[in-house]
Structures are given as structure tokens and as C-alpha cells.
């Protein structure tokens, strides 16, 4: 028999089929229902906003990878996700130049500065939004009623609760027929996408469970004590970006703990911060800050939640 050339390398000799692009594209698929809902409610604005954010995200990634002389991984799906997620948490009427600037910031300073995918500490999309909030507070709080293509300033349900003590009905919140950011209006669409991610085990259920569980528990307690002054738990769940945040932003693997206990801590921490912000601060919405704050302490959580090694004595 002729001696051939055989490859020699360390075990294991097989690899699971799931690689980084497969995971990323699964997330993108999960975001499709949300995209459809936002197009349904906000028509052309939604399409333009999503297109601008995605293109800017990919373009920025490309430029930075060229500058840093790295492999170009624009098509691994991660930039698309950042662009899409950022679009979802912007007001539909935001001028496109502002959206583009925010996306540039998200990729450049939220991701590439740290060294690219895998090295960033904060969720890039949320960082992009935080940047826009700080720079263009007025633009970022100009909301639009769904189905109308004119900018009609209208308060979000959370702002209404906070500043006018009036509550929008649960049903409108669930279906998305309210003012709000592009993709956070329809809880139904988000839940469809989220179930796909949970079934495919792309995200760890512990984070949304810890996050939403804490919100429900705390808001129930407050609501029991003072039903007039506080919103009921279901309302809290459905309003604002909570569900989008809990399923698509908080569980972002790069910026969350790697241990199971750490993920509980992360989710519960997000819930605590959210309730505090919603109930007592001057800000109407706390999803973004709750997640960014927990992102910041993720390295710390990782350090303190090392699992005990198999058979290790106490």
C-alpha cells in the first residue's frame, strides 16, 4: 500500500457543526418576527432605520478590521445583530444620520476598541443607544404613534405612567399598538423569536428567568402595598424594552457571565436595578442601564462564581 500523507493533530478529531456564524445567524432569524412587527407598525421608517443601522454596522466593522489588519469577519453575523438590535431600540422617527452615528459609535467604541468580537465588555447596541441618549436627548425621546407616518410627539406608556399616572391597556402593550422604540413595542413578536433561541439553546434561560422573575416579584410586592402608585407586574413586563432586553440584550453571551450561578446573579441584578430605576429615578426606562451596569460587573461575577471542581473537597 502506498504511504499517504495523514494529518496528525491532537484530539478531539471531530467538531460540533455549530460555529460562530451559525450561532449569530440563529439570533438573526430569531429577530425576524420583531423586524416584521416593526415594519407593520412603522412602515417605511422601520425599513430605513434597520437598513441604515445594519449597513453602518457592517461598514464600520470592515473599516476597523482593515485598519487593524485583522481578518474581515463582516459576514459572521455579529455586526448585523448589533445594527439590527440598535435599530430596534431607537425611536422610529430618529433622523437617519443620528442612527448611523450611533451605530458607528456602537461598533467602533463598543466593540472594535476592545479588540473585536469576544473582547467587548458592554453590549455594543446598548452602548450605542446610551451614546445617542447622552448626545441627542430630545431626538431620542420624540416618539411616534404606530401606523402614522408623521412625527406626532406622544409619550411612551412608561412615561405616561411615570409623569401622568395613567396606564395603557395590557392588550395594546402585548400586541404593540403603542408608542415606543422600533422593535420593543410588540411583546408577541419578541416572544416568538425568544422561544426559538431558547429551544435552540442559543441563550441561557437563566438570565431572562432571573431578570423577569425579579421584576415580577418586586413589582408584585410594591403593587400589593400601593396599587395606585405602582403598575401591576404584568404591565411592567410588557411595557418598554424589558422583554426585548431580557431575551435579546441581557443574554448576549460575550458580555454576560460564563458560569451558571453567575448568570442567575446577572439576571437578578438586572431585575433589581430595573425596578429601582423605574420606580424611583427620574428616568422613564431602565432596561438599558440595568444591563450595562451588570455588564460592567460581569468580570467580577465570573471571578466569584467559579464552580467547585468535580470531587473537590470543601
Amino acid at each position, binding site marked *: 500500500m502506498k504511504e*499517504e500523507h495523514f494529518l496528525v493533530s491532537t484530539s478531539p478529531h*471531530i467538531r460540533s457543526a455549530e460555529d460562530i456564524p451559525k450561532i449569530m445567524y440563529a439570533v438573526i432569524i430569531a429577530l425576524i418576527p420583531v423586524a416584521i412587527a416593526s415594519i407593520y407598525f412603522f412602515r417605511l421608517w422601520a425599513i430605513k432605520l434597520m437598513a441604515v443601522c445594519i449597513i453602518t454596522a457592517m461598514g464600520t466593522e470592515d473599516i476597523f478590521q482593515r485598519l487593524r489588519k485583522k481578518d474581515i469577519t463582516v459576514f459572521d453575523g455579529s455586526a448585523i445583530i448589533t445594527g439590527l438590535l440598535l435599530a430596534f431600540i431607537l425611536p422610529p422617527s430618529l433622523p437617519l444620520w443620528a442612527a448611523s452615528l450611533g451605530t458607528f459609535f456602537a461598533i467602533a467604541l463598543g466593540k472594535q476598541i476592545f479588540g473585536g468580537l469576544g473582547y467587548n465588555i458592554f453590549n455594543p447596541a446598548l452602548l450605542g443607544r446610551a451614546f445617542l441618549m447622552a448626545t441627542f436627548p430630545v431626538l431620542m425621546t420624540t416618539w411616534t404613534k404606530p401606523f402614522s407616518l408623521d412625527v406626532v410627539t406622544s409619550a411612551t406608556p412608561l412615561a405616561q405612567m411615570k409623569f401622568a399616572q395613567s396606564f395603557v391597556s395590557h392588550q395594546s402593550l402585548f400586541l404593540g399598538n403603542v408608542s415606543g422604540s422600533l422593535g420593543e413595542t410588540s411583546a408577541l413578536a419578541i416572544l416568538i423569536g425568544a422561544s426559538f433561541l431558547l429551544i435552540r439553546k442559543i441563550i441561557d434561560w437563566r438570565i431572562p428567568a432571573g431578570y423577569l422573575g425579579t421584576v415580577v416579584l418586586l413589582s408584585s410586592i410594591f403593587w400589593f402595598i400601593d396599587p395606585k402608585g405602582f403598575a401591576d407586574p404584568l404591565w411592567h413586563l410588557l411595557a418598554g424594552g424589558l422583554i426585548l432586553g431580557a431575551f435579546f440584550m441581557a443574554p448576549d453571551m460575550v458580555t454576560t457571565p460564563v458560569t451558571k450561578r453567575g448568570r442567575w446573579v446577572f439576571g437578578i441584578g438586572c431585575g433589581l436595578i430595573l425596578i429601582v430605576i423605574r420606580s424611583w429615578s427620574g428616568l422613564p426606562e431602565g432596561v438599558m442601564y440595568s444591563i450595562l451596569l451588570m455588564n460592567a460587573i460581569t468580570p467580577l461575577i465570573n471571578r466569584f462564581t467559579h464552580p467547585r471542581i468535580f*470531587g473537590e473537597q470543601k
Partner: protein
Amino acid sequence: MRIRSFRGGVHPPEEKITSQKPIQELPLPKKVVIPLSQHTGVPARPTVKVGDRVKTGQRIGEAQGPISSNIHTSISGKITSIENHPHPLGPPSLAITIESDGRDEHHPSVKHNNDYFKLHPNEIREIVRGAGIVGLGGAAFPTHVKLSPPEDRWIDTVILNGCECEPYLTCDHRLMIEKTYEIIEGLKIIAKTLEVTSCYVGIEKNKEDAIKAMREEIRNKANMEIVSLKTKYPQGSEKQLIEAILNRKVPSGGLPLDVGVVVQNVGTALAISEAVKKGRPLIERVITVTGRGIKNPANLRVRMGTLFKDMIDYCGGFAGKPGKIIMGGALMGFAQHTLDVPVIKGTTGILLLTEDEVNIEEPQPCIKCARCVDSCPIYLLPLYLGIYGEKELWRKCEELGALDCTECGCCAYICPARIPLVQLIKLAKQEIAAYRKKK
């Protein structure tokens, strides 16, 4: 009933393409190459010289020290050389080459013992030691050592390992179906030697026919149980097997006997029964020749020292362009650079992957997905072992428990960034051992 298992692990495609293929006898090879080191521990010392005539089953290498093993010739014929030869587990090492005389004449030491059940435990240990039996599941640890626990250790359970959790391999599966009686005989002999009363056989659920055959065999035996286990890798790893069946955790850095257990592979039980009843030393074993890279995959009974190329020829040669030749399984096996290596006691199979099955993907940065963490059956944090390993921070690796890693490969298998985690951890272990020695 809740199906028993352990925490962590992965479930790669099972690929048991040979599970319904009965064991075939490989025709007597023209020559065999028998390495003097086929086991964990000190290599044996040759007791023959070039030109000697030997008969099948004759001892040709003598164990050196307590953790070592005797070596026997697997055919009859003439010794033609004693020199270094390619070894499937590492650099070339001393091996005895025997040219067959085609007669397969047995040595007089190979004889039946009809009164085997009257033997004293120490006599059994002596027979097992003499027969050069080692663990046949792959690790090749000398069996007589496992059968001789220190006086102060209380052993109450024997577990036979019939999990065969590695994808592709089916030799143990076939043995449990075709040699059911002998395996249970072997288990009884082990139990008697260790004076234990409770015996288990752990088998993964994907081998229903083997579970059924084994259950039939042990009917009316009160102290034995066949346990059907979840099909999950590494179910057949000692620590995970004990966790699944007894819910006991072997301490970090410890051995199964620290929790009162001895684990033996089903193939080893068969070898013990053959040695005790028929006086046969360990000169043959069953291996699986498999994968898409071979024309006719098969389960073969082969003599120790048979060269890989003889078995591949017998199985019809390569199918397609060969990419990788692996001794053992897909998760823990060893890639070979030549077919001129022999079957040794720890060879469970030969896996041939075709060229397009071995895609070498560039590692990407870790995305902290924690799939490696979730899959590690030892509860390590493989991603950090990888990160620190790449930076050569060996002490950090040690703090994170690198030495506890069993190199099972779950983490590297599952990693979507294709980071060579096992390679980095192996390196870390070597470096840690090196600086510990210096101290």
C-alpha cells in the same frame, strides 16, 4: 424511571455504523510487531532473543516492578528483530517482531483449568498478572493492580463499563452480545477476587440489544444489575460512570477505590475469564475498523501486534482519499502518521476519516458562549484554561484545576470558535508537571 447519567457532556453524532456487524476473525497475520510498552507504567523487559522460536501465548516480555505488565507472543514463529518500531501512542519504542510459521501452535502454558472456581483470590490475581491483562477500554492500566487494593481500602462495588460512549466504536457492544456468558463469568471472578457483593454493568441506552442480552444472562442473580444509561459522552469515563450509577463522586486527584469502587471494561472481564478458565494470556482483542474512509467497516478479532495496514487491507482498503488515521475514538483517539503501527492492548479501534471530513478551521476569538463550561464533566472553566494557556500563564491554569482535566475533549468538540482547548490544557499539564518537578 429517571434515566441515570452525569452532569455535563456532549452528544456527538453516534456513527455506530458497525453495531450490527458480527465480530470476524482476522486471518493469522504473517508477522506481528509487539511493543514492550503497551500499558500504563514501566515497559516490560524482553525474555527472548533474535532467532528464538516461540509458540502462541508464550511470554516474551517480563513485567518490571509493580505497575507494569507481561507481554506474550500472539502467534507462533521466529523472532526476527528486537528494535525500535513506530508506536501508536508516541515516539518509536522497543518492539519484538515475530515472523509467523503459519501453525499457530500454542505454548504448553496455555491450558484449561476446570476447577477455576475453587481458586483463592490471590491465585486469581497471580493468573491475571501472569496473563498480562490490562484495561482494554483504552487506558491500559494493569488489571492486577486494580484487583489488589490496599488493605485499608474498603471496596464494596464492581462496575463493568459497557458504555462505549465514543462515537463509531462498537467492539464492546458486539462483545456484550456475542460473549455475554463469558463477560458475566469474568465479572463473577472479579467480584470474588475483591470480595464484593454488589455488581453493576453500565450500558448506554443506544445499545438496547446488548442491554437485553446482558439482562437475560443475569436473571435470578440478586447482586447484579444492568444499568441503562443516557447516551452521552463521556458516560464511560470512570468518574462519570460512578457518578451516574452510584451517585458517588471520586475526589479530585483520587481514584475510584477512594469511594469503594473498582471499574473494569467489559472486554477486560472477558479477558479475565479467558485467562482464568482457559489459561489464555492477553494475545488478542476485538477492535472496530470504521469510518467513512474505509471500504468495509468491521469488528475484528485480531492478534496483538497486527499492523494497521494488514487490517485496512482486510477491510477493503481506503474509501476515498484518507485524511486522518486515528487509533481509538473520535474524541480521545490518537492520530497516526503511518500505517506501520501495531495493534496494542489499548487499541479499541481504527477510525479512518476522509480528507473532506478533516477540515482544519482557524481558531476564532472566544465569544464567552460558555458551551465549554456547560459541557465539562469535571466542572472546569475550559475557556480560561485556553486563555491563560495561550498566554503561557501555567500557574493560573493550575489554580483553575488544569490537572483535574481528563482530556475528554467535550470542550474542544463543542467550542464554536474552534479553540484547541484540549491541546492547550495538555500543554499546561506538562508545564505544571515540569515546574513541580523542579521544586
